Structures are given as structure tokens and as C-alpha cells.
């Protein structure tokens, strides 16, 4: 029985305030996570966004979305490797930052790239798999962001974790979005790095599950649901 994630989930659901050290760590992570946005603002103010600022900003926001998704996915494996249980309490913030950067990334596309030309946008999403993959990934993030609060956790109970397994769908969709964007120019070095990281993070879950699901006396169905986050 691994009480960590499940207990943390219960703690968050019950609204327990984080302890002192954790509170400080969360404050630091919160501020540091604003760094990528701050950097863009500073670069923009200093004319440092290069010849194609819209492209620069859009791509930077997309990259940071992937980074935060990977960080969020890394929490459970880190726990299994012996990191303190409390890091689970950082996951919601990392996930919400991923959604924040993804939304800004999408907004850049809608506004400064397409100028809210809805016909062109719909055509883009329908006709181009690379846009569709990114759009689907962002769409799937919405219910997760909306149910990231204590109230939704309490209301949904065990269904909450089921719902939040959408992350296993949306992160690969996000990587695919990046991969397809670069694939036509054969430039898959960077997406390959993210694909590898995500594959490892997902593989860690498969391995753990395979180990734990063996004979039924070793792990009951309840613990399987709880521990697969």
C-alpha cells in the first residue's frame, strides 16, 4: 500500500493547509513558474524577440507548456524513487501552469496569428492534423483545470482520478502536435527529446502497474486505482 498520492489527494480535498516548508516551496515554485512569461515580457520590452516576435512568443509558450506537463507527469515517478510525499502537493500548480501557458499559446494563435478569423481557424483545425492535435490537447486540459479545485475533488471522489487520467492522452497529443509541426521540415530533434521524456514517464507507470497487478492477494483493486495517478 502506497499511501502517498492517495493521502495527498485526500489532504487537498479536505483543504488541509500545507505545512511551513511546503508553503515556502510552493511559493517559490509559483514565482519561478512565472519566469518564462516574465522573460517574454522583458525581451519584448527590450526589443529582444527577434525578427519574428509573434512566432518567437508562440513557440516559447508552446515549449513551456510541454515542460510543465512533463514536470507534472514526473511527480509520481519521483515519489516512487523516494522523493518526499509532499511533492505531490506541487502537482496541481504545475498542471495549472501547463494550462496557463497552453492557453496563452493558443491565444497567440487565435489572436496575433489568425486575428480571430474563425473560418480560417476552423479550416486549420479540421484540415491540419498538427493543429488538430494541439487543439485536442488544449481541449482535454479544460476539464482537468476546471476540476482541479477541492470542491470538484470532493464531489467527484474516485471518478476524479479517472477523469484526470486524460492527462495520459493529452500529453502525447501535445508532443504529437510539436512533432508534426517539425516533421515536415524533418527537424525532429527537439520533439524527440520531449517524446522520449514523456515515454519514460508513462513507461514508469506501466512498469509499476505490471509489478503491482500480479497475484490478486498482493494488491487489491482499490489500491490499483489509487496508486496509478
Amino acid at each position, binding site marked *: 500500500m502506497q499511501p502517498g498520492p492517495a493521502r495527498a489527494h485526500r489532504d487537498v480535498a479536505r483543504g488541509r493547509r500545507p505545512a511551513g516548508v511546503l508553503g515556502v516551496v510552493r511559493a517559490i515554485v509559483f514565482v519561478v513558474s512565472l519566469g518564462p512569461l516574465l522573460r517574454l515580457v522583458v525581451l519584448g520590452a527590450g526589443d529582444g524577440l*527577434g*525578427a519574428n*516576435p509573434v512566432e518567437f512568443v508562440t513557440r516559447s509558450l508552446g515549449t513551456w507548456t510541454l515542460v510543465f506537463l512533463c514536470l507534472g507527469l514526473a511527480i509520481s515517478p519521483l515519489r516512487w524513487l523516494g522523493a518526499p510525499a509532499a511533492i505531490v502537493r506541487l502537482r496541481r500548480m504545475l498542471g495549472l501552469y501547463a494550462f496557463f501557458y497552453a492557453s496563452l499559446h493558443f491565444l497567440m494563435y487565435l489572436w496575433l496569428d489568425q*486575428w480571430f478569423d474563425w473560418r480560417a481557424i476552423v479550416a486549420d483545425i479540421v*484540415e*491540419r492534423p498538427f493543429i488538430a492535435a494541439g487543439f485536442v490537447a488544449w481541449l482535454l486540459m479544460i476539464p482537468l483545470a476546471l476540476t482541479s479545485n477541492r470542491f470538484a475533488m470532493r464531489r467527484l471522489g474516485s471518478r476524479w482520478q479517472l477523469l484526470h487520467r486524460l492527462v495520459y492522452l493529452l500529453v502525447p497529443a501535445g508532443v504529437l502536435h510539436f512533432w508534426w509541426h517539425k516533421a515536415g*521540415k524533418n*527537424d525532429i*530533434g527537439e520533439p524527440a527529446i520531449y517524446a522520449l521524456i514523456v515515454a519514460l514517464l508513462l513507461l514508469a507507470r506501466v512498469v509499476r502497474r505490471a509489478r503491482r497487478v500480479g497475484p490478486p492477494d498482493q494488491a487489491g483493486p482499490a489500491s490499483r486505482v489509487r496508486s496509478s495517478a
Partner: protein
Amino acid sequence: MLIRTRSQHPVQPSEITPSAAFGRRREILRAATAAGLLPVAAALARPARANPAPQRLEAGPSPLSTDEPRTSYEDVTSYNNFYEFGTGKDDPSRHAHQMPTRPWTISIEGAVAKPGVYDIDTLLGLASLEERVYRMRCVEGWSMVIPWVGYSLSELVRRVEPRGDAKYIEFATLADEASMPGLRTRVLLWPYVEGLRMDEAMHPLALLCFGLYGDVLPGQNGAPVRIVVPWKYGFKSGKSLVAIRFVEKQPMTSWHIAAPHEYGFYSNVNPDVPHPRWSQATERRIGEDGFLSRKRKTLMFNGYAEQVASLYAGMDLRRQF
């Protein structure tokens, strides 16, 4: 045949002071002075020779120039696709100075009466240089207005006297592993090859280009000699040419080999034929009104339809894209 030019960078690696010695230069000087060995120390501490200042190219105006506002020199030389130096837009400007561009020769090969190896200085003097301000539309959806310096490619083609079986021209560009870090990746088949149909190459707009903003081309823009075909997507305009081949069959060009469904041989700018991954209907003009500028409509043949549309009469440009 591919001409491999020896590294002729003004600073030979052997001339550069080892960093360990440089770090201890004062110490070495002091010790050397004490020992009466100052001449030796001076040799050790010899400063690296600076790169020569950009060389001006005298060029007259051309009626083929557009009077649209020019994209800044800064943007034209810092936002480049030149994958031999890396796939990032800033990779070429960071690495291209390593490329040896003198001496330089172009090998003229294939179905011509006068094949041979032509020196860059010979080529520079072959016809009078003109400043041609052209729109440049990248397949990625951005564009610039660039004052190139050169003369019509046809001037060179005529002088080497193509034979009747020369139907296409193939351009091979430099692949120098010592100066081009991007060659280590397999993004494309190196050396980069582009091509034109003979009538396209003979069109006066097709430019054999040596300069930019009145100076010799910077490395990242294709020094010392490139072609510029303004009615086609930018990747058709091969940089740092080392060979021009006159051939009978349509050349297999690098991007076409890499992704045949995305990049056709012709690759004429065409707002009606979308790239599989994005629309080509609009483009972002680099440097135009900053961050909040709207994209502009892309024009058929990049606005050169009046001059070049007749080259493609009767062709289905959706299929032969």
C-alpha cells in the same frame, strides 16, 4: 563533381593563442621580460587578425526593383533558414562566419559548350551589377523585402552556351563539414540541391546574387554567391553555390526528396495551394509595424505574376506545385 574548397579563413587555428597561454599572458610577459625573451612572448601573445570589413559592391538601380519598404539589414541577416548551420533561425548568423568564402569557385558542368571552374572574381565581373529590391516569401509563411546585388542568371547561362539537351539547371551548394555544424544532422540530404527549368533560369528576374544592402553577402545569406528566384518560395534560392549543372531531366531537389507531398519541384508562391500543414493565403512581413501587425495576403507568384505567369501557361499549378 563537387568542388571542396580548402578552409581559407583569415585566422588559421594554429595562429590562435591557446586559451591557457592567453589566460597567463601577463605572467608570461613578466617572466619573459625578466628573462629577456620578450620577442618570444610577443609571438605568443600575437592578436588574432580581425575579419576584413564588409566589401562594398558598386551596383546600379534596376527597373525590376520594388519600392516597398525594405526589411532592416538586422532582420535580413539574423532571421535565416540555412540548415547547414543548424535549424534554428539564429543558427546561421551565429555560425556562418566560420564558412570560408574566399577563394571560391563555381563548377559549371553538364550540357554546355563551355564547362569549367569559374572563379568568384571572374563571375563578379561577368556583367554589370544591379541592385534588385525583391520580395522574398518563405514557405513558412513570412516575407521580407530585400535589396540584393547581382545580375540576371541568364547572363551567366548565355555565356556558357547550353546545348539543346540542357532542359534544367541544377544548383549544388556548399557542404563543408568543418564550418557547417548542421551537416551532422540528417535533416536533409547534403549537399543541398535546388533546380530550375531552363526557361525559369533564363527569366530576367532570376538573379545570380553576390550582395545585400550594397555589401558582399554575409555568410548566413549565402555568401559569396547564391541565386534568388523571387516568385518562388525562398528555399528554391540556393545559397553558397559551388556547382551549376545543365541537365536533361528534372533535378531531384533536397526538399522534394525530404517531403515530396509538401515541397514540389516548382514551389511557386501560390496562395491557393496550401502547404499540408498551414495555409499559404497570408504571410507575415518581417519587421512590419512590430508585434501587432496583421498578416498580409500572399500574392500569386509573390506579386510577380505579370512577369512570370506565362512560364506556366497550361500547367495545373495545384498538381505541379
